[in-house]
Structures are given as C-alpha cells and as structure tokens.
C-alpha cells in the first residue's frame, strides 16, 4: 500500500513538474492527463470509487478534450520564439513556489493528526446518490444551483464563441 502510494505520488509530482516546464501545450495537456489518472488511482486507494470514475470521465475525458480542441483551434502547436517579458518573473515565481511548499509541508509535518483510520466500504455511486438526493442532508440545494451554473456556463460559452455578439 505504501509502495503503491509512493509510486502514484511520484508519477503525479513528476508529471506535474514536466507539465509546467513544457513549452508545447499539447505535451503539457498529455502530462496533465497522466496526473489526472494517477490522482484517480489515489482516490481508489482512499476507497472513493465513484470519485475515481468521475475523475477519469470528467477530467481526463471531457475537460482534457476541451483543452486539446482549443489548442487545435488556436493552432498553438509550435510556439514561435518571441521576446519574453516575464523573464524576471520566472525566478521570482519559482522562489515563491518553493516558499509556499516549504510553509505548507512544515505545517503538516509538525501536526500529526491522531486517531485510527476509518475502515469504511468502497463509496460507490449508490452511496453518493443516496446522500446527494436526501432532502434531510444539505446537498440537494447546491445540486440544483450547480445545474443552473452549468447551464449558464454552456450559454456563456456559446455566446463567447459566436462571431458577432
């Protein structure tokens, strides 16, 4: 179990770093897909089967296809060499990132949460559905709000992509 976690974590972190350092956006997208898949497997190790499936379907499937489509539409495959006005910002950004990860990890290492771990069953679609649509739980109203949000996003994307508004 520890070995599996170490393997998946290494894949996720290495692919994440490679995603950031790539110049070609298509390669970045493919590395992001690898990160998504390793995160889906990590969700499985946390007994979240439904979340893992949704991660693969929504993130690695739908969202990444959207990214690839836009890269294709914008013809960004070969980045032309242009003067980079953000050169001084790069070092500063990496420095700030190192500070952030240092702060976060040092906070976590100092505070080991005590307590035994939960030995629950696999949380599948049934449990998620029963919780989501239970009127006694607070998730039904956010569900409806999210449906409106998705409708607004779809209409907004169509409006933005139109030739003449």
């Amino acid at each position, binding site marked *: *179990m*520890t070995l599996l*976690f170490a393997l998946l974590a290494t894949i*996720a*972190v290495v692919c*994440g770093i490679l*995603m*950031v350092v790539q110049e070609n956006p298509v390669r970045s997208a493919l590395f*992001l897909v690898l990160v998504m898949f390793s*995160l889906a497997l990590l969700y499985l*190790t946390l007994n*979240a089967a439904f*979340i893992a499936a*949704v*991660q693969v379907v929504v*993130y690695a499937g739908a*969202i990444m296809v*959207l*990214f690839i489509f*836009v890269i294709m539409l*914008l013809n*960004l495959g070969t980045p032309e060499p*242009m003067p*980079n*006005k*953000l050169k001084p*910002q*790069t070092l500063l950004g*990496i420095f*700030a*990132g190192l500070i*952030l*990860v240092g702060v*976060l*990890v040092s906070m*976590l*290492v100092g505070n*080991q*949460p*005590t*307590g*035994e*771990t*939960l*030995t*629950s069953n696999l*949380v599948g679609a049934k*449990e*998620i559905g029963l*919780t*989501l649509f239970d009127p006694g739980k607070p998730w039904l109203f*956010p569900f409806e709000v*999210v449906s409106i*949000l*998705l409708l*607004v*996003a*779809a209409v907004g*994307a169509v409006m*933005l992509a139109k030739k003449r508004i």
Partner: protein
Amino acid sequence: MVPSVSLNSYLILSAILFTIGVTGVLIKRNPIIIFMCVELMLNAVNLTLVAFSRYQSTVAASTGLTPSHAIDGQMMVIFVMAVAAAEVSVGLGILVSIFRNRTSINVDEIDLMKG
C-alpha cells in the same frame, strides 16, 4: 483494507501538487497552460477533501456525528468538479474570442487594461 499510508502523506502530496500549480500560473505565458495549472490546483484540493473524508472516523465518533458524514468530503469534490468544468468552458471560450481579435494570446502581450 486498512491503509498504512498516513493522512499527512496525502496532505503533503496535495500541497506539492498545489504548489506546482501556483508556480505554473506565476511563470507561464500561455493562458491555456495557466488554465491547466488551475485545474491541477483544483485537483490537489480534491485530493485533500477525499483524504479528509477517509480519515474522519475518530472525529465523527467523538463529536456524535454518524459515520455517514464521512461521505461529505466526496460530495464537495463532486461540486468542485462541476464548477471546474463550468470555469474551463467559459475560460476557453474567452481565449478563443481573444485569439480572434488579437492573433496572440500570450498573457504578457494582452495589456489593454494597463493604465
């Protein structure tokens, strides 16, 4: 299946992934890669939520919550995913319309709102 990996391991991995996303947003010029880094940050937060929902049992036992509350973190992950999908569709639509007007979408060349 009793996990031998501690909660902190997941949280540290999540912190590292989040930081990679933040650094990418700070240093990249291509807004599509910036969007991908935002997705990476959202995913790191999702990992935190799922890990907390997995390791919630002792808190639930001591505060009188039922173990069914352990699923709450996963419900939040579903909503985060829905919001991420909406954000990406609108954001990429904006990028397409910027590209139509300016032919370049590098973030260091879009300075119309600079005073």
